[in-house]
């Protein structure tokens, strides 16, 4: 039973990452790999604040969101000058730079050693160390993120995003400041990643730089491509499949390290396979 709660919590975290990445990639058509970097900022902020300063978990979320917003806003300004492949390359460089910051800024992040002993959140004096309590909190967080994403894409703002994806230049002719829309959606989506990162850190209780690499961005990409771009429900389906499916490897008898690599192998292959044979995803409407 505890194992099921564990799977559910991981599913919730990656669903939040996938939903918010889908806003940028699926709805707006901006090919960003930056998500792992924002995920890392959220996770590290919570880890540092709750271990070193014994800060409150929820306060650390807010601080993480503020930092992430500032970083994403600045990166978004730079990205406004790039399109398509170059856009992706700059986000790739961003993930690389963030990774180096997590790795090299030893005084703050403890470098390759990582940060152990991140405490679970405490609400009204109750520590959420019980898996089912934590699962409940995560379910609430996922509903919140899903609701926010749903609200965004079904508003007029969301319609402009889709129009940017289809024909940005035409939209500019109609007087829309598309760069501001892109900057807004990019920054908002980064907030979602940082939010997920805070929960990830406090749940796993140990983080190190190896969790926030470009492969984690590729993993989130695999989820949204599998589920279908520009479909919120698709991201949930994709996250469910990609979180649960590799768990089967545990029962086949791979060692933990080999199982981790098999997982990476599977989603890499799955991403390629989807693009080759079903680019619209399982329930998607838009294809790359």
């Amino acid at each position, binding site marked *: 039973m505890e194992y099921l709660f564990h799977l559910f919590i991981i599913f919730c975290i990656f669903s939040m990452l996938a939903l918010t990445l889908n806003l940028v990639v699926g709805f707006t058509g901006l*090919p960003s*790999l930056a998500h792992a970097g924002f995920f890392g900022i959220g996770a590290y902020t919570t880890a540092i604040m709750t271990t070193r300063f014994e800060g409150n978990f929820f306060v650390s979320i807010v601080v993480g969101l503020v930092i992430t917003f500032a970083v994403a806003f600045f990166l978004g300004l*730079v990205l406004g*000058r*790039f399109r*398509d*492949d*170059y856009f*992706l*390359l*700059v986000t*790739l*460089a961003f993930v*690389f*730079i963030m990774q*180096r*910051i997590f*790795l*090299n800024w030893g005084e703050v992040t403890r470098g390759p050693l990582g940060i152990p002993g991140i405490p679970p959140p405490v609400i009204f004096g109750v520590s959420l160390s019980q898996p089912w309590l934590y699962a409940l909190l995560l379910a609430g967080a996922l509903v919140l993120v899903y609701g926010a994403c749903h609200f965004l894409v079904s508003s007029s703002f969301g319609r402009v995003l889709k129009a940017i994806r289809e024909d940005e230049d035409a939209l500019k002719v109609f007087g829309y400041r598309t760069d501001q829309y892109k900057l807004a959606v990019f920054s908002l989506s980064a907030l979602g990643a940082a939010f997920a990162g805070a929960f990830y850190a406090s749940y796993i209780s140990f983080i190190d730089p190896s969790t926030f690499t*470009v*492969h984690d961005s*590729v993993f989130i*990409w*695999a989820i949204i*491509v599998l589920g279908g771009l520009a479909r919120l429900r698709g991201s949930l389906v994709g996250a469910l499949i990609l979180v649960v499916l590799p768990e089967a490897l545990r029962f086949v008898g791979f060692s933990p*390290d*080999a199982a981790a*690599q*098999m997982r*990476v*192998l599977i*989603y*890499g*292959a*799955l*991403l*390629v396979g989807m*693009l*080759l044979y079903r*680019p619209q995803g399982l329930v998607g409407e838009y*294809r*790359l």
Partner: protein
Amino acid sequence: MEIIAQIIANSLIAGSIYALVALSFNLMYATGKFFNLAIGGLIPIGGYTVLAVTVYLGLPVGVGILAGVVGTGIAGLLLDRLIYAPLRKRQASSLTLLIASLGAFTFLQAALALLFTSSYQTLPTLIDKNYSVFGAQVTAVQLILIISAVACTLGMHILLRKTSFGTAVRAMSDDLEVSKIIGIDTEKIFCAVFFIAGAILGYVGVLVGFDVGLDPLMGFFYMVAGIVGAIVGGMGEVLLGYPGSIIEGVLHNTIIYVYSAAWGSPITFVLIIIFLLFRPRGLFRK
């Protein structure tokens, strides 16, 4: 004086690695018109093949190096046949090809980690010799790297200018559709291009393996650095990737010397992104 010579030597060594990657990248970009990020997965294949052939099978080093170069070439060719060619046929966007190549990168790296474990490994010493040039210490492998980058770039230039294969590549680089219409067997050229590009990456993996050792993640940095070198020189300009990469190497090693080794590569990338904001088409093109 000695320190300056050493910085120049280190810049040349690093720049030469980037230049070889940039050469391979530009060749694929010129014909296929997409960013092939599988580069990061192809580079370590060369090094690991040497490890498998010489250490595990006990065959001579020469055989291992040849197997590393040819094997990675075949891997590059297979990627094109299995993934990129079907996508091209469906007229998928360059972004789709890019994302697919990213999936391939992830796949290859995980496959190498499964086969050879993800821990750091070294290759046996190739040539145990050090040279002193104006006070700068350079190993034999590093010297081979520096010479190879120049030789491969010039060789590629001659190949593209003097042979019918080169003419076909340049035609495809200008316009793929027209190339097909005038009767160039573009798929055959793609096979050759991806084999050659893969072989160059394998060669990089072999030399870097001998120089600093192997781990499955090693390709990522060299990939980003090589693509950046190609962009600084001008995308798809096969010859200009070399100066672009050397400039990047000088920048990188200067930062390492004046500031710190750990922050050398991130600061280099930040500076180059800023540079790209002002000159998106590279240093040498208007």
